[in-house]
């Protein structure tokens, strides 16, 4: 059962067989078995090319439709998209901001990838981020006399725990009662949001806001020692990006080098075969959702201690949903997710600039992102066909 793991060479991160987009998950079982062993370098690179070109084409197509919207809105699409590129790549602030936004996307996307690998769809990133952010606000405010090297790791661990709890509930409900996780994760989003609203209007509200009578729905600022260091002066870039990158490697090792990770992937590839070979499918699905929640919880905690320094409404900025897009673009692969979330972070930063440059409502970006999701998820069929063609040309998998 475990022998597949030994066949990986040192360039293991680039093995395209491991990059299984969603729609492939069911058919991938065959490639997982057939594709190994007889791989050639040039075929590998061709397949990687396909997996980059097809989804990027989807993104471009969505942006083209966005250009039509811009024309209708009386804005010049060329100057709008030029502003987008300039905003993301044209300045030190833009570049760092791209990484600031990539950090939560990567963290959430890692969790979503783990869950998807066990064929669980986690739409609960928003709620799990909020759960993590709540802990990351409460703990530093409560434990004020701890030094930084104690309070920061503890805060991150607590954020993980809170997010994991938020993922555990849908996980256990799926495992014990076969409740659809898509629905429960969405419900858990609403519950987290209401809980945050309650705490921000009550127990966690900034005492200064109460004194001055503004009653802003935000918490007090967390003390200095609990904050993540800023790594580029005069920018928002904080050390959370390193944490996210390290965790990407950790998740990679977890999924491809450990027995538990192997089981999670086996469950996603073929639940029946996994069950017959003695893998506890339900346990592994619940575990994958719990871990997904934990990673999103870290994303929420990092937003508090790295960016905002306090809890406030809109803290999650839709990263919980955008993380799904990033995960899709990154082939649900921890290493593929790194460029995908940086690209997507750049898209978000550029969108802000574009919005200011051509004066269109930011909602346009939301609509375009929706199209990105539709196109990228719909483009999977071409990725599959193309790869099948490459494989049959190189004598692998003649049938499918």
């Amino acid at each position, binding site marked *: 059962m475990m022998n597949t793991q030994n066949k990986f060479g040192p360039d293991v991160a680039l093995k395209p067989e491991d990059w299984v987009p969603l729609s492939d998950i069911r058919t991938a079982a065959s490639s997982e078995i057939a594709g190994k062993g007889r791989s050639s370098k040039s075929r590998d690179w061709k397949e990687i090319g396909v997996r980059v070109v097809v989804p990027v084409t989807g993104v471009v197509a969505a942006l083209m439709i966005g250009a039509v919207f811009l024309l209708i809105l009386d804005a010049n699409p060329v100057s709008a998209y030029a502003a987008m590129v300039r905003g993301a790549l044209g300045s030190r602030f833009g570049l760092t901001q791209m990484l600031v936004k990539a950090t939560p996307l990567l963290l959430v996307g890692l969790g979503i990838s783990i869950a998807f690998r066990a064929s669980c769809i986690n739409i609960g990133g928003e709620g799990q981020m909020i759960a993590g952010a709540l802990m990351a606000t409460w703990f530093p405010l409560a434990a004020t006399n701890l030094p930084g090297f104690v309070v920061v790791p503890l805060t991150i661990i607590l954020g993980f725990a809170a997010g994991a709890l938020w993922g555990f509930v849908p996980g256990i409900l799926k495992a014990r009662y076969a409740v*659809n996780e898509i629905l429960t994760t969405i*419900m858990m989003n609403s519950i987290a949001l209401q809980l945050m609203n309650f705490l921000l209007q009550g127990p966690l509200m900034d005492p200064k806001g109460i004194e001055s009578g503004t009653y802003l729905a935000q918490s007090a600022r967390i003390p200095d020692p609990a904050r993540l260091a800023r790594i580029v002066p005069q920018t928002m870039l904080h050390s959370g990006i390193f944490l996210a990158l390290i965790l990407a490697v950790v998740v990679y090792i977890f999924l491809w080098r450990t027995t538990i990770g192997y089981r999670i992937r086996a469950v996603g590839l073929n639940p029946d075969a996994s069950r017959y070979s003695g893998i506890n499918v339900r346990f592994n699905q619940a575990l994958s959702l719990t871990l997904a929640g934990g990673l999103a919880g870290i994303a929420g905690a990092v937003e508090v201690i790295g960016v905002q320094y306090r809890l406030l409404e809109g803290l999650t900025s839709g990263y919980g949903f955008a993380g799904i897009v990033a995960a899709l673009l990154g082939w649900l692969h921890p290493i593929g997710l790194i460029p995908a979330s940086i690209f997507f972070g750049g898209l978000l930063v550029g969108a802000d600039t574009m919005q200011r440059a051509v004066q269109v409502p930011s909602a346009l970006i939301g609509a375009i992102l929706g199209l990105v999701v539709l196109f990228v998820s719909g483009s999977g069929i071409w990725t599959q066909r193309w790869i099948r063609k490459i494989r049959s040309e190189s004598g692998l998998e003649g049938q499918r």
Partner: protein
Amino acid sequence: MNQLLNAGVIIGMLNTMLILATPFLFAALGETFSQNSGVVNLGVDGIMLLSAFGAFYAVLTTGSLLLGILAAAFVGVVMGLMMSFVSVTLKAEQGVSGIGLQMFGLGMSSLLFKVLVGTVRTVKGFPTVSIPLLSRIPVFGPILFEHSILVYIAFALVPISWWVLERTTVGLTIKAVGQNPAAADSRGINVNLVRYLCVTFGAVMAAMAGASLSISSLNLFQDNLTAGQGFIAVALVYFGGWTPVGVMFGALIFSIANSLQLWLQVLGVPIPASLANMLPYLLTILVLAFSSRRGRRPAALNKPFIRGEA
């Protein structure tokens, strides 16, 4: 708490319950057809939002309620075809494409609202129609027979949907496609066509749900008007065991929780609004947990059909 036991309050609460249940009924009954054919359309919320705006804007500019309904239906058809194309023809993962559709609907409705309307404005929506005689019945009259026409239609659709799904060839065909597409295919049924029709019908129903919010119960539009009601509607289909009657009970249970929550706030019962808002979601999760093993799940739910593959 005394106030809660007052007859007038209870009547008001139950009346509100039926109004609140209406969008859920439209959307969830449509989704019942979609899911019985094997397609989970998670984009219901996005369809509701964009069609709610379409209906609202048509009524705002023309004053015609009929044009409002037609505008919503048009949005429903277009978005239903989008979802069908991506999920049925392109065989995308339905959970993900639905989220894409939701994001599109949310963004697009908010964009159009900002550009075309700008500020919150109200429209003259469907009036309350008191059914002669019946509305005079004490207690039941004011609860059941003092509503806008869309409320009556939504509830009338429950037995109609049941009849279509359980007692007609159309219903049998739909369920065959959802239970065993390969067998349906070998009997000469066009699986993908049935799915296109069901998803698009479901989307038009979701559009009616949106219209029932913007031109019947609330008579306004604002950003994210539905606040996730479309997702609840999808959950209700699971809760209802893929049957119209089950869906109706789900919608009523959810709406009574919501109605109670609203009336508690109206009456000034000292419960923080945000905690009361949680109640319907907690209840939905509990109800899903206790009901999930019931009902016959369409065997091919969420699975694209590829001829030649079991």
